[in-house]
């Protein structure tokens, strides 16, 4: 039986790096896709709207785990072997895109419709309206819930341990198997999650306060 010493600790810390990387990649790719989906959901074209809402509906209605299994095991049936990190990034990105799309759609819709009327009356194109009038206001509204979602994402990355990817949770489990010191090991793992998530939660809270203070009507 091993002991829970410095090498084990560093093993967990390195795995925390993978958790952060996975979070960053999923947030970046999922965010880009989610932003596009949010705008598609608000398109005046019915087909574009349906494609986006169909995608969001399907992804939100199935567990991330299924998306993960499908990308990891499912694609291998067709001869496409995805390394665990890619399968994990892919499925988390898909999950992130559907949720951010809905959060952001709500934020875009909460910009008063008079802003659309005023800007279209000034002969701006729809793209210009988004770029210069609507999105700058929507992004302010979106910051607190987006950071809040990011906290959820950090914790939810633990799900990818089931396909053998060694992120923070999985590293904890491995060290525990070798040391049988579950309390110490998982305390450290939990503490690391806390150190990552707590500042983000506070940031989200803070942003919400700042936004409310800045809203005078």
């Amino acid at each position, binding site marked *: 039986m091993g002991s829970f010493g410095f090498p084990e600790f560093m093993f967990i810390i390195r795995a925390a790096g993978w958790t952060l990387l996975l979070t960053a990649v999923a947030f970046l790719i999922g965010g880009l896709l989610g932003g596009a989906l949010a705008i598609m959901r608000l398109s005046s074209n019915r087909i574009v709207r349906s494609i986006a809402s169909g995608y969001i509906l399907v992804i939100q209605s199935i567990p991330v785990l299924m998306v993960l299994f499908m990308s990891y095991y499912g694609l291998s049936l067709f001869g496409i072997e995805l390394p665990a990190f890619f399968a994990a990034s892919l499925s988390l990105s898909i999950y992130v895109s559907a949720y951010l799309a809905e959060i952001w759609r709500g934020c875009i819709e909460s910009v008063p419709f*008079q802003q659309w009327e005023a800007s279209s009356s*000034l002969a701006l194109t729809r793209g210009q309206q988004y770029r210069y009038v609507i999105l700058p206001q929507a992004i302010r509204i979106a910051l607190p819930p987006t950071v809040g979602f990011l906290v959820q994402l950090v914790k939810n990355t633990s799900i990818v341990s089931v396909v053998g990817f060694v992120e923070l949770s999985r590293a904890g489990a491995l060290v525990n198997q070798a040391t049988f010191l579950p309390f110490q090991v998982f305390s450290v793992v939990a503490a690391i999650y806390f150190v990552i998530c707590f500042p983000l939660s506070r940031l989200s809270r803070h942003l919400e306060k700042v936004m409310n203070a800045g809203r005078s009507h």
Partner: protein
Amino acid sequence: MPAVVIEDVHKSFGQNEVLKGVSLSVEPGQVVAIIGRSGSGKSTLLRCINGLEVIQSGRIEVAGHTMTEDPKALRDLRKDVGIVFQSYNLFPHLNVVENIILAPKLAKGVSDGEARERARAVLAQVGLSEKIDAYPDNLSGGQQQRVAIARSLAMQPKVMLFDEVTSALDPELTGEVLNVMENLAKGGMTMLLVTHEMSFARNVADVTVFMHQGKIWEQGASEELFASPKTPELQAFLRSGVH
């Protein structure tokens, strides 16, 4: 050629027909006030003139453009037709000068320097030169509305529409906005305004149009229309004092 031609315009919201065959013609430089009870269709008529409301039938021509749903043609029309709203609708994330230069630069391709030059000119026109760097939230309602007028003027429109622009203002702030509009009228701007300010309509508008139940019920030279209203509906409206 008239600056605005409205011919037999019909407009419904679902089952509710709000414009029941409206025709109106406005000459260049003319100021036309549209009055009537709420629900008479006066704001809807104004919003049809720059395409914010889509009409079911009839024809609208403004500043040489025919009303259309084609986005490109509609933008061309809107470059020549300004509108000012009851709720100002300034862009809250931009300061005064940024509010004003945005559309001339984006929609008309005016250079930044030229747009800022224009902004200074229109701000002087509405008496707010010193507020050039202020944010909308730090301005009074009257000031915000004057900036909104300036923003519209910076596009150098041929026709200006005013949709109850003083209705959201405290009584002591309406004067400053009405002054700006009166000066515009004197400067020869073609203006259509939906208003509850009867004395302004009477004194500044060349023509006043009384709308009732989705139709133009009565119209004429403002002085005459207010002095001797012909229809019982207009008589009752002017007597009621609730405008």
